[in-house]
């Protein structure tokens, strides 16, 4: 059986040691606090792994991006401070709403899964007949049969099966976005512009490219090359060259405690 996991990513973090898959499970089951988790380290581990292999398998990368983006979004909202006192109350509240909604969505399907299991247990005793037709009827069926399938389907299937996985052929992938190319793209922009708006530069790219760019940004952040800031939830993201000084709010910055300004006020 080919039951390998997609994200063969092993993590060694302060609050968690183990495979990425398990991390997500313990997060959803509330055994590890999202606020304690340094997502940049997770992204960095993934980036390292990608660099070692040198290839992005699109479906796997998409899965990782979707998961890490959801976690980033949740965590950033949990951590988001605001200059305004009223909004300061609202920010974490909304973040909690979002996290609760996600956890409730999971619970809903966990319970639906239980119901599916119950139906399966109740029904699996019923067996269906799978006997060949008596020969008299078989002849009728053959006589009346007309072409319904293209024979090429069979050649294509054999072609697929002949392809050894050791020689990966990426021609069937629609497209890939390499992390390395997004890193160079970001560095190139930062060289010319010490501060720029994410949407202005990358807003016209497709979602996958934008997502990989965010991953690349995380990498630059951990390496101390770039800072990024966001004044309000879902507002524009400003990226600045780390040498040019940080923005007001470091979203996604590991360990950054979100209430500094409130305390100061």
């Amino acid at each position: 059986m080919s039951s390998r996991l997609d994200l063969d990513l092993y993590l060694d973090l302060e609050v968690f040691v183990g495979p990425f898959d398990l991390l997500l499970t313990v997060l959803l089951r509330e055994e590890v606090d999202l606020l304690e988790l340094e997502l940049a380290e997770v992204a960095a581990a993934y980036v390292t792994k990608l660099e070692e292999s040198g290839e992005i398998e699109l479906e796997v990368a998409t899965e990782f991006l979707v998961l890490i983006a959801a976690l980033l979004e949740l965590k950033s909202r949990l951590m988001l401070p605001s200059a305004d006192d009223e909004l300061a109350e609202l920010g974490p509240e909304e973040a909690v709403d979002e996290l609760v909604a996600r956890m409730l969505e999971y619970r809903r399907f966990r319970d639906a899964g239980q119901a599916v299991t119950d139906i399966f247990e109740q029904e699996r005793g019923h067996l269906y007949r799978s006997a060949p037709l008596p020969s008299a009827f078989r002849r009728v069926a053959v006589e009346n049969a007309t072409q319904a399938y293209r024979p090429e389907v069979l050649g294509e299937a054999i072609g697929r099966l002949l392809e050894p996985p050791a020689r990966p052929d990426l021609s069937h992938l629609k497209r890939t976005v390499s992390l390395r190319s997004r890193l160079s793209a970001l560095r190139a922009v930062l060289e010319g512009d010490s501060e720029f708006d994410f949407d202005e530069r990358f807003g016209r790219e497709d979602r996958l490219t934008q997502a990989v760019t965010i991953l690349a940004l995380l990498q630059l952040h951990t390496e101390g090359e770039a800072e990024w800031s966001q004044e309000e939830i879902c507002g524009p993201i400003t990226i600045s060259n780390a040498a040019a000084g940080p923005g007001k709010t470091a979203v996604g910055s590991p360990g950054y405690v979100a209430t500094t300004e409130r305390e100061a006020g």
Partner: protein
Amino acid sequence: MESDGALARTVEALLFLAPGTVTLTELADACDASEAQVGEAVTELEMELRDRDRGVVLRRVGGGFALASDPRAEQAARRLLAKPRTPPLTQAQAETLAIVAYLQPVSRPEIARIRGVSSESAVSSLLERGLIEESGRSRFGATIYRTSELFERVFGLEGLDQLPDLTAFDPTPEDERELRERLVAAGEQRSEP
């Protein structure tokens, strides 16, 4: 009535011979009778098979009808046909199957987002068991899945609308309040100096 009995006889013979489920329209065409007449004959046969309580029952599955064996004969059947019992669904498979069944068509990243774990292994065992099947690709190249005809048969469903209403699994307001309080408490802990 003699003629009704004859129609129920023909219907039983057809369901016995046909591979897979047979729809009302197919039965009516083959019997040269109206769908209403055939529908009555199906009900008559269904009740008679229930009353005689023997080894064969009529099931309304996947938008049609099929004969199946009585579950009480399952063990003996597996001995005769040398077939091992189908393994139970694991929790991962059950959750994944529920997501596909309720949200179909649905992509694997979407399944992963809801379950919070990558779900390749659950998806591929469900594919192998024939309970779900591929139904194309998303814009981003991810495979999209839906449930199969076999799923409806194995789960004894007339159609997908026979699944329990998803709202039946809405968490209670207490669940929600409890979760929220725990999260707020965690957030407040973090904000203290």
